[in-house]
């Protein structure tokens, strides 16, 4: 039940992000912070499946291949999972710092993959400004998003 709730809330959050992205010039990217949420709070045996859900839903917002999304989010969640045992995950500072770190890795990965992958695997390469804004704004949104998901016990 909690997993289903997580899927529903993830779909809702990404839907809002997609709508904002289409109606405004700049919009936060909630993908990395959802990966951080999964890395911090998911049960470990369901972590890969939760990330698959995030990547599947996130891939509907742009033309990047599903495989690239999966690999990037899996890597982000894996990194957070490694740090999970040595941080206080309930603290706001932890959530903000990890979200910022994950967002930064996400920007670097996205740019790196766009530059290195062959043209047959087309990846959109948005401007650095947009990516930076999306990451920074998502970092600020991390505590309320985490609080919302935990309030409704949307736990993968």
């Amino acid at each position, binding site marked *: 039940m909690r997993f289903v709730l997580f899927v529903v809330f993830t*779909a809702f959050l990404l839907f809002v992000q997609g709508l904002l992205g289409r109606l405004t010039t700049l919009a936060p990217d909630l993908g990395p912070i959802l990966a951080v949420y999964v890395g911090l709070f998911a049960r*470990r*045996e369901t972590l890969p499946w939760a*990330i698959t859900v995030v*990547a599947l839903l996130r*891939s*509907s917002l742009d033309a990047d291949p599903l*495989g690239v999304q*999966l690999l990037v989010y*899996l890597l982000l969640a894996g990194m957070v999972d490694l740090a999970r045992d040595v941080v206080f995950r309930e603290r706001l500072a932890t959530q903000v710092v990890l979200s910022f770190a994950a967002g930064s890795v996400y920007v670097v990965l996205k740019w790196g993959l766009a530059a290195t992958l062959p043209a047959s695997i087309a990846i959109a390469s948005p401007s650095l400004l947009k990516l930076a804004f999306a990451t920074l704004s998502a970092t600020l949104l991390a505590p309320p998003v985490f609080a919302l998901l935990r309030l409704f016990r949307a736990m993968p």
Partner: protein
Amino acid sequence: MSARFPAALLVAGFAVLSLTPVAPSLVRDLDVVALHAYRPFAWALREVRERRLANEPNLPGGDEVVRALVDSARDRIAERDAALSDGAAMLPGKRSFALARVVSVDPRSRQLLIDTGNHVRASPGDAVLAGNQAVGMVDEVDGPFAVVKTPWTPRARFAAECGAGEPDDPRIRFVTIGEARDEWLATVSSAEGRLATARVLDVKSADVSDLVPASTGLLPSGFFFGTMEADLKTAKTGLQTYCVRPIFDPRLLDAVVVVHEGPFETIGDEDFSVSTLDRLPTAQLSAWREGEALTGAGAGAAPRGAPVVADDILLGFVDAALLGAAKVRGVTDPGQEHTFLVLGDASSRTIVCVSERRMPHGGAFRYLGGGEPPRAGEIVVTAGRGVHVPRGLLVGQVMRSDGDAFEVSRPPERPWRPVEVMRRSAEPRSGFGP
């Protein structure tokens, strides 16, 4: 070992496999996993936009005006093609001729890649003309595509002559040899001393059939291809040599005429194939803000550079394609260099320009070279550069021009309408080019 590692490996393996060509299209077909909750918003926005478009300063009158522009462009291109064929039509003997699109011009080798279409096939040695000008000779052929060697191709030799044959203006025959210099020119072999004149002489292709065997491919005589003048570079060494400069800019040719002895070999099917594609639901909301359209299933077959057309209007070119989607770069997106045909009431010309920015009614461009900058009221269409781009796709109508800058008014975008991706039904083999 925790249970998450095998699952993570499974997911990562699936992710990597989905990026390989063996992955089924379903895995990468984004439409399958698109959030269909967008659709009601897309429909609502479509209605809002339809009403707003009526007040935008796009080409007024909607589809009727666009249809009239397309028809007008077609008529003017037909006139231009007729003028290009004038010289070839006057040639004596059992020669046949056909119009060919210039696909690309290589500035290094100074050769052209032309496309004669599927209805005729050129042969090596065929003359290539444009009106009363000689462009060169077919060097290699690959299906409907051919590489044309010009007099300015390094080391290319062409028989030429100058002079009217009058006592005070004798006819002199010589051979031009293409030079590998920064500018397009050919030097003149064995020029006679009497050429030492300050005049600039017109150079024409010459009949030298009395000097070379009949099997040698020759340009028909009497077609202009340059002007001869003293070569300033060698003058400094004390030698007086001469060079021939092109009488027109071969880089700006959009079409040429191929002349063949006897009838052409015919193949006979359509030159371009067209596939209709839907756009992804999310593209309806983006309204081209990012300059990219996402087309639906089947878009992966679209080759890079293929034009994307809606209602006979060029929207842009395929930038990259997946199995299930394609990114399309809009024609007005900034920073792209285009070769366009500008069709005016009195004249038509090829220009090179760069797109500077998108505007609500179309786009702003900057003229880089060619005949002369476009003027208000002239129609802009594609010149046919690129294997998959036909000539004459409507870009828009020039609304205003100021020096090198000009604005093109385009019909309003309707992102909910399906698009058509065009592709040449034949493609040159890999590595075949000028």
